[in-house]
């Protein structure tokens, strides 16, 4: 057996012995066992046992079709289809993990690499000692501390890869990172754009899709001849996450079929946003054009009249920009608040026009008031008075980042709760029945 082929097994033994003996010594020892004709698995077990260690369960070579959540340790050869880095905080430490898809001729599966294996997109690798978990009903390959990865002898071409089972979903159920999904939706908008890929211009198509449950942005990496207003069945697309908002991607393996236009309600009905509990939005991580209703629990500092950096639009602190230092700020009016509906909470940002509507005053009038009071705080105080503890309905795009879930409102209304009595009566009715 070649030294190169032996390397992962030497690694297994060294790890099992936690550095009690040097790698070179392990290598020599293992070679000696093999020279005596001892089978590899037995040799490994016995060497470890001789030094008082315990070998992890023997890894089994499998095809991806055959792996399942019960597999504690599997070996396979696969092509790395995608690699995405992701920042996570674990035990107070920032670190980078990698996730994506890998596949062999039987199946393509999502994976998570818990440390940096220097995975390259398009590379074919021999994976040893991976483990498999289940995540949202699908097997997920994990490359953990015990895993080892070597370049494979033979490359798997993209065409040779097996299928991945696409799940049929409503748009409201989409979240980032679904490897294969099928949706039926009406095209609300589509436009062609040009982007630079590896220094070369490449055409792509993007826009909005809607079904009765919600809306989603899409990006098509080739021309699927998608037309505005058409009802399409998009098979085998995948989703990416942009700050928690799903983006439906139509790639090489995607198939688009045009359905009859009456397969879904007309555009006018699909554009009505659906009221979403905030708790559900938290689980989704974000969404395009969502409608939320809750109570304003807090109007945060930095609401009311503020100054922004003319360069980067960041909010100034003591007339200083975090990036550009001391600058002459431009005035703006906004609200940063917490909206909570009892199922979840998020930060909402209301831009100038929305705040002007809520106050019934223009920004100029606010500036006048601030000048008279000799403090911009009067506007913030008025906003606190008007908004805290009031029920509010907002529409906008919700995204999430390290600071949690947030929504930039395209519309916000303080609700005048009048129907409470009727609602109470209605609920009482259902109580009598049960």
């Amino acid at each position, binding site marked *: 057996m070649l030294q190169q082929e032996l390397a992962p097994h030497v690694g297994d033994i060294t790890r099992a012995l936690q550095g009690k003996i040097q790698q070179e010594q392990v290598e020599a020892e293992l070679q000696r066992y093999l020279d005596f004709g001892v089978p590899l698995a037995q040799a490994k077990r016995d060497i470890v046992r001789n030094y008082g260690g315990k070998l992890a369960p023997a890894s089994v070579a499998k095809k991806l079709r055959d792996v399942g959540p019960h597999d504690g340790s599997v070996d396979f050869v696969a092509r790395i289809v995608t690699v995405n880095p992701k920042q996570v905080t674990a035990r107070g430490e920032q670190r980078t993990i990698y996730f994506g898809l890998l596949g062999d001729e039987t199946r393509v599966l999502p994976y998570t690499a818990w440390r940096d294996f220097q995975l390259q997109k398009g590379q074919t690798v021999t994976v040893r000692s991976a483990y498999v978990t289940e995540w949202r009903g699908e097997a997920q390959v994990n490359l953990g501390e015990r895993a080892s990865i070597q370049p494979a002898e033979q490359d798997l071409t993209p065409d040779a890869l097996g299928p991945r089972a696409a799940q049929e979903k409503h748009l409201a159920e989409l979240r980032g990172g679904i490897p294969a999904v099928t949706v039926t939706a009406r095209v609300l908008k589509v436009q062609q754009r040009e982007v630079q890929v590896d220094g070369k211009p490449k055409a792509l198509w993007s826009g909005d899709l809607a079904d009765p449950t919600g809306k989603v942005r899409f990006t098509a990496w080739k021309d699927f001849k998608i037309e505005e207003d058409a009802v399409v069945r998009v098979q085998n697309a995948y989703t990416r996450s942009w700050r928690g908002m799903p983006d439906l991607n139509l790639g090489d393996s995607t198939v688009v079929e045009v359905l009859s236009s009456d397969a879904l309600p007309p555009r006018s009905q699909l554009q009505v946003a659906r009221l979403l509990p905030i708790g559900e939005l938290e689980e989704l991580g974000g969404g395009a054009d969502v409608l939320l209703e809750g109570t304003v629990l807090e109007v945060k500092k930095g609401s009311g009249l503020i100054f922004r950096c003319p360069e980067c639009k960041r909010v100034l602190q003591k007339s200083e920009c975090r990036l550009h230092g001391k600058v002459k700020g431009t005035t703006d009016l906004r609200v940063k608040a917490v909206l909570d509906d009892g199922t979840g909470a998020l930060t909402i940002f209301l831009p100038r026009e929305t705040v002007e509507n809520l106050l019934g005053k223009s920004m100029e009038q606010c500036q006048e008031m601030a000048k008279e009071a000799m403090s911009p705080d009067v506007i913030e105080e008025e906003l606190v008075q008007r908004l805290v503890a009031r029920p509010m309905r907002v529409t906008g795009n919700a995204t999430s980042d390290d600071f949690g*879930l947030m929504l930039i409102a395209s519309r916000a209304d303080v609700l005048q709760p009048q129907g409470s009595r009727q609602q109470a009566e209605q609920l009482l009715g259902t109580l009598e029945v049960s």
Partner: protein
Amino acid sequence: MAREVAHRVFAAEFNQANLQVTEGGERAPSFVVTPLGARVNRLLVMGVLTSLEKTGKEGDMWKARISDPTGQFTLYAGQYQPEAAKALGELRPPALVAVVGKSRTYNPEPGVVLVSIRPERIATVSREERDHWTVDAGKHTLRRLECTAAALDMAEPTPDALVQMGYPRDMAEGVIQAIQHYGKPELAAYRAMVRDALEAVVTGRAPDRPPALPPPARGAVTTIRAPAPTAPGVAPAAPGEDPEAAEDAKLQAEERVAGLVRTLDDGKGAPWEGIVADAAKTGLSESDVEEAINRLLDKGIVYEPVLGRLKPT
């Protein structure tokens, strides 16, 4: 990191709670779990402010009572809740108010458990807004009742099984914890409580009798420290990361240290070493104490007349 949601819970249900759960490390958020499984770290209540008094050894603490159609919430606000204390100072009962706050449990004497609210924000509200809250609290309570009933129908209820039925994860975990701790709740009595509250909205009059719930459970607060549940495929959240919980822990440390400064002050000020030694008995490290003192100095709650001695202002 997600902000803790503000639960809508009626006073009668909240006051029955005597289970406290902390999931994760020292500074993980803690929840008061009600008999119907609301895991309350933060809550939003609206009702009538019926009484307001100064209390505490120094008379620097507000104690307030807020009535909803089912019972009364108790609030304590001191110098550590400046906004809420200021708002209370400007109110005269009776007044319709909204309170956002954190849940607290007290063991004033062995065998007695009291739950209260430490307010973060207080605002006055209209009758319509209060009614809106009452209906909202009714809806949330009915949903928990439904989830509890579903759990009781199962031979071996688990959070996962409830999640599969469409209940939110947090509610499912709470309901299972509640059943394990309190046993089978009197569903009919809670349903009657919701009915009375909703009738109060319809008629505009408070119910003429308190809800017939079993008497508040007596006994010590049961605190469970459970490992935080983690979702597969997601790196486990490290304990001690939650900024809200960290802030809670800091406030508690400040309150304890401020108390020690008062008790150890012999006129010349409380000696630093004495504070550290006594604080250690309550589980605070020297660096915790140092941080708490610095924050108390910043807030002007204590001052240092001579180096190494602290006095309350």
